[in-house]
């Protein structure tokens, strides 16, 4: 299977990969050579490299991945300086080796941010994102307490905008791309989604305040309008969401009763 055309087009690559034994280890780059076929996905190239390393008695490179189809948000590599690599609106796992050619050099690093400590090699800890959502990224409705789904109409434009924001996969590329390692795009996507829907109105103000507070507590940087986040986002989340969140936050700060 797959013996014919693909193998004849094999390319040889030099890869520089960040290796770090654990959270407290210093870490550094190591160079490897790997052969890849253009039909491989980027992660399959790493699989092949890992098989080779292990056959030589060396531990494989740790990297996060799961769905391998661009939706779970696990994969999180900085490839030649770009979070998720060169392709627009494409996660690492959806990137294919036909973007590279024989002899290319590729540098691979984890998403870097103070709020995303490295666990091992290319694996990072993104639990700060979960804590931001725990602070208020939901609508408080107990199971069984919901009215009929048609009780409230939602204009299609609003629903579509909410869906645009909700498409965030929580990968953290926005943070990795930002010179300040800010988490504004991530936080704003959730704040916006819920603020755009009638169901989200009751907690709209408290939500914006609580989530922004938590974001600051986690050690993410401040937004200085570089918009690198939007360029790196594999799901096309726009900075309009940040504007929307800022408006809500401002309004909420003025009207807050505490």
């Amino acid at each position, binding site marked *: 299977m797959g013996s014919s055309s693909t193998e004849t087009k094999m390319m040889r690559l030099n890869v520089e990969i960040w290796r770090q034994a654990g959270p407290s280890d210093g870490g550094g780059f190591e160079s490897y050579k790997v052969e890849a076929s253009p039909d491989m996905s980027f992660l399959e190239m790493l699989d092949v490299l890992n098989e080779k390393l292990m056959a030589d*008695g060396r531990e494989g490179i740790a990297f996060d*991945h*799961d769905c391998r189809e661009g*939706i779970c*948000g696990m994969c999180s590599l900085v490839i030649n300086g770009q979070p998720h690599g060169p392709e627009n609106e494409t996660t690492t796992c959806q990137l294919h080796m036909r973007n590279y050619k024989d002899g290319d050099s590729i540098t691979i690093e984890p998403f870097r941010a103070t709020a995303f400590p490295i666990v091992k090699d290319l694996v990072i800890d*993104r639990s700060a994102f979960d804590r931001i959502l725990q602070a208020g990224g*939901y609508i408080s409705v107990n*199971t069984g307490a919901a009215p009929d789904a048609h009780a409230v109409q939602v204009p299609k434009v609003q629903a579509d905008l909410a*869906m645009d924001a909700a498409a965030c996969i*929580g990968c953290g590329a926005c943070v990795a791309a930002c010179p300040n390692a800010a988490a504004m795009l991530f936080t704003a996507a959730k704040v916006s989604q819920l603020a755009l829907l009638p169901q989200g109105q009751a907690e709209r103000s408290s939500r914006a305040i609580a989530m922004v507070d938590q974001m600051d507590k986690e050690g993410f940087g401040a937004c200085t309008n570089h918009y690198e986040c939007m360029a790196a986002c594999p799901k096309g989340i726009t900075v309009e969401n940040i504007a929307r969140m800022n408006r809500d936050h401002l309004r909420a700060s003025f009207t807050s009763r505490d």
Partner: protein
Amino acid sequence: MSPATLDSKVPTGVPLADAWTRHKFDLPLVNPSNRRKFTVLVVGTGLAGSSAAASLAEMGYNVKAFCIQDSPRRAHSIAAQGGINAAKNYKSDGDSVHRLFYDTVKGGDYRAREHNVHRLAEASVSIIDQCVAQGVPFAREYGGLLDNRSFGGAQVSRTFYARGQTGQQLLLGAYGALNRQISAGRVEMKTRCEMVDVVNVDGVARGIITRDLQTGEFERHAGDAVLLCTGGYGNVFYLSTNAKACNVTAAWRAHKRGAYFANPCYTQIHPTCIPVSGHYQSKLTLMSESLRNDGRVWVPKTQGDTRSPEQIPDADRDYYLERRYPSFGNLVPRDVASRNAKAVCDDGKGVGSTGLAVFLDFRDAIQRDGRDTIAAKYGNLFQMYERITGEDPYSVPMRIFPAVHYTMGGLWVDYNLQSNLPGLFVLGEANFSDHGANRLGASALMQGLADGYFVVPATITSHLAGASMQAVSTSDDAFAEAEAASRDRFQKLLSVRGSRSVDQFHRELGQICWDKCGMARNQAGLTSALSEIRALREAYWQDVNVLGDGASLNQNLEHAGRVADFMEFAELMVGDALHREESCGGHFREEYQTEEGEAQRNDEAFTYAAAWEHKGDGQSHELHKESLTFDNVKLTTRSYK
């Protein structure tokens, strides 16, 4: 030991349509102020687990939840694209709870339990209400009402969707509800944490052993009930549309501690996936079933026709689905479409470099409706296809091939979703309950959420409010024994230091299962698979190469543990396929087919769920039967001619 009888605990003496309401009334209640005294361990936080954990915590129970990924939001449920069914009848096209029930029982080829399916259809309605209230941005019409589509050949429009990301949006809704309870301190959430054993005390499931994937530490957790919501076992085939971490470990460990495994041979193969491109292939990507609404499936009429597809005139093409099934054509159910693709490829007419693919051609649809219309409908799918294959489906037909997608089998549960092991409940894809031998499109999301939001929060009292529960402590012998056994297993894997990688073994296992227990099965193939699997398993423990240690993140070791369980589970799956001497749904035995080559059930002998009991390593499993009765639908032969 005399075989325990399988009591499904379905309500008797009540009409089907009233059974669930009546059952809920008959169930004992736990006083709200007493609920916090009970600890529920929820293993897995995909749709089923997140919804259950959140709902139970809201009710006041003390919940501890666990998942493998770094966040509940990344569970495999996130990848579901198409939609979720519900009998809302918002389109006034004749849908009803009864019709959804009927379609599901028939779609499952009459191998599901009527009462469970009816309850599922009832709950479907409340699921949509719940999700909308949580802020799930379902697709809407211009008037602001919810949009529906018809899915997977259904004759009514009952599928709710959120673009091509329905699973993502539903999971984010449930994860939001879970987050709310985490922040309220009612759920303790452990991520990157794998359950490696169930602990029984006096024959009741009272705890679990976990391994922290970051530190390698083993931990003991005690509770009053254990909920397994750990998903399906499709990755036993190595290549599947499932996420890479999907596994059978939790279910298999529970099975080895006494829980029966039901109908493991019922696996679903999805007809429209992107074919394998090379030996390095790590997973397969599903292309939405909706493509078959406009694409026409064909292969060249003659073997070895190497012309490029555009150059093959219609006269030399075999539109085999349209030819064989004039009334359903390209829209025949998943199992039928998959089997036919295999048949033409076996016949040497497959296309592409591997010969294991068929064409899905949009030429005629583009000519008829225009490129823009097709792009509006399928643009994102076409783009995904092009990204993976490097080919443009607007000008060259897509190449597709079936792939493993879903597993209907799972741990046996009664009407309360409790396994035969008291205290152990099983939800979502991990149980065997609602889909019989074949699952209909958009019904898995519905089942996971029904189980988690509406069924278990009601039925868990059957266990908790029952006999007075003795307190258990994690220092009990049963915990110590289970922890030691788990440590040994992982240590053993680390100490082999053989010559073949975990992935190599996993691929080999997958190939055996796919070739001999895949789309078509027969006695000779299954028999040889049994011995091949045993030999491979032996080789595994002699020759697998797992590097590193167990004291930090070690992805290779994680994978090794899961493959070890797949190696044991595969034998049961194949054995079940061998024992079921009939064809039904996703289980096609070549010996049992009609003259026209369609699946032939044997209702007289096989109208039962096969629940297998583990009798010890190296011993054969014991079969327990739950006979299925159909009082509300008539058993017919599915026909799509």
